[in-house]
């Protein structure tokens, strides 16, 4: 089946495109406009990298993770697991510009400084809006990409362009679950006759993700409460607050989540991965008994691979990261939240056509949900 045709009919027309950019930066045909993936022209390649790497094309996730992770580390609820940590950057200046504890910024700076990676694929936003993929090569550049955006940019397009140049030998990638899944598809299911040098991806750091939001809708919503150009931070506190917090010029405004939910990208409701299960390390906002005021300056980190474990231990040993005890219920709460997202995805997909859609090749993973 022609690749552009396959992606259009099986992903775009079914509202499954996350806008990750995995199909872009490879050829002249695919592009992104305001968070929407567009195809300028049909191409005649039958098994192109665009459809091979797309995280929403039918994929046997179970087979893919068995290729990438030791089976004994895999937990059904949250994927590969070697440990759960609560961490934050020791450097206060990193924390000041971070979404939560600044753990990812600190880790990527360290990985670049220590030569564990020679480039990092990050996301840089204007405030928190209109984000774009950014490839940085110096530790000093990482902080310009601190903080999160709820608009998902096609940052993997920048990764594909960097890989195509074959200049870097160990690129670190930071991304949401859809992006890290695409990266693992690139690494473990490449097209040898059309190589994109995915072996040069050296580290993957996943970001916990509930959903991304429509670009235009988000800009319009933000404009109702603040000057979009002045917004410095957005966050979604634990569910009991039912709000989106927008901070601009030092003032934080709480927006009822009911105004935000309609802006959730339909594709995100079909996503079964909250914790970025395909990664060396996965990082999200902390949840503990200390309450939101304390937790919002900490991260929780799931260690998934030996490489991730070594980087985290190095960061702690060098005093780059601070740790605190994980509450006993921490892992169970994480599993419960993760299962909640999987159930929503299964329900959403079944409502479309009665099948599990792109999850069908690994349907046994979801049959009890």
């Amino acid at each position: 089946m022609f690749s552009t045709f396959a992606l259009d009919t099986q992903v775009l027309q079914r509202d499954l495109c996350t806008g990750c950019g995995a199909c872009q930066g490879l050829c002249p045909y695919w592009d992104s406009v305001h968070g929407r993936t567009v195809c300028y022209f049909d191409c005649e390649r039958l098994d192109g990298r665009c459809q091979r790497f797309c995280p929403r094309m039918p994929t046997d996730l179970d087979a893919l993770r068995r290729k990438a992770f030791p089976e004994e580390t895999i937990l059904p609820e949250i994927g590969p697991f070697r440990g759960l940590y609560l961490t934050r950057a020791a450097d206060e200046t990193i924390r000041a510009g971070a979404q939560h504890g600044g753990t990812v910024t600190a880790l990527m700076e360290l990985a670049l400084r220590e030569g564990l990676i020679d480039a990092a694929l990050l996301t840089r936003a204007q405030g928190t809006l209109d984000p774009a993929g950014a490839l940085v090569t110096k530790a000093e550049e990482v902080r310009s990409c601190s903080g999160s955006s709820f608009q998902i940019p096609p940052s993997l397009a920048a990764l594909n362009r960097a890989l195509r140049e074959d200049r870097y030998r160990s690129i670190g990638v930071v991304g949401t679950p859809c992006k890290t899944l695409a990266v693992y598809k690139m690494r473990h299911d490449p097209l040898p006759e059309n190589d994109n040098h995915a072996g040069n991806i050296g580290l993957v750091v996943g970001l916990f993700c509930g959903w991304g939001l429509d670009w235009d809708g988000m800009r319009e919503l933000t404009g109702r409460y603040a000057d979009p150009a002045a917004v410095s931070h957005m966050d979604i506190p634990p569910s009991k607050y039912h709000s989106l917090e927008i901070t601009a010029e030092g003032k934080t405004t709480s927006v009822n989540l009911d105004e935000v939910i309609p802006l959730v990208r339909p594709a995100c409701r079909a996503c079964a991965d909250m914790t970025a299960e395909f990664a060396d390390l996965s990082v999200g906002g902390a949840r503990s008994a200390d309450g939101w005021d304390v937790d919002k300056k900490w991260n929780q980190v799931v260690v998934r691979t030996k490489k991730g474990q070594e980087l985290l231990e190095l960061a702690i040993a060098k005093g780059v990261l601070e740790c605190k005890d994980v509450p006993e219920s921490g892992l169970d709460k994480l599993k419960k939240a993760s299962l909640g997202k999987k159930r929503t995805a299964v329900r959403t997909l079944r409502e479309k056509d009665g099948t599990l859609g792109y999850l069908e090749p690994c349907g046994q993973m979801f049959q009890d949900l």
Partner: protein
Amino acid sequence: MERTIRVRFLHPETRETLMVDLPADIRIGALNGVLYDHSFVYPQKPGYGFVICGHLCGAGHTLEQYLTPQAGEVEIQVFGMPQIMV
């Protein structure tokens, strides 16, 4: 065994349908003959395009190039305006 696809053609003006079973490797350009044989459209020159899922199909392509390996049927719109296929 030769793969067969059940094709439902949609007429561009009357919205009538024509259902036929065709070999999966039939060329898109050969579909004209099928339509003429069934008197579904009047023969025209120099030919019609066909639209599958919003995509104009290439006359030299085969039907199965527009289908998933599992697909057993497809709906094809006959393009409404006669045009030169290049």
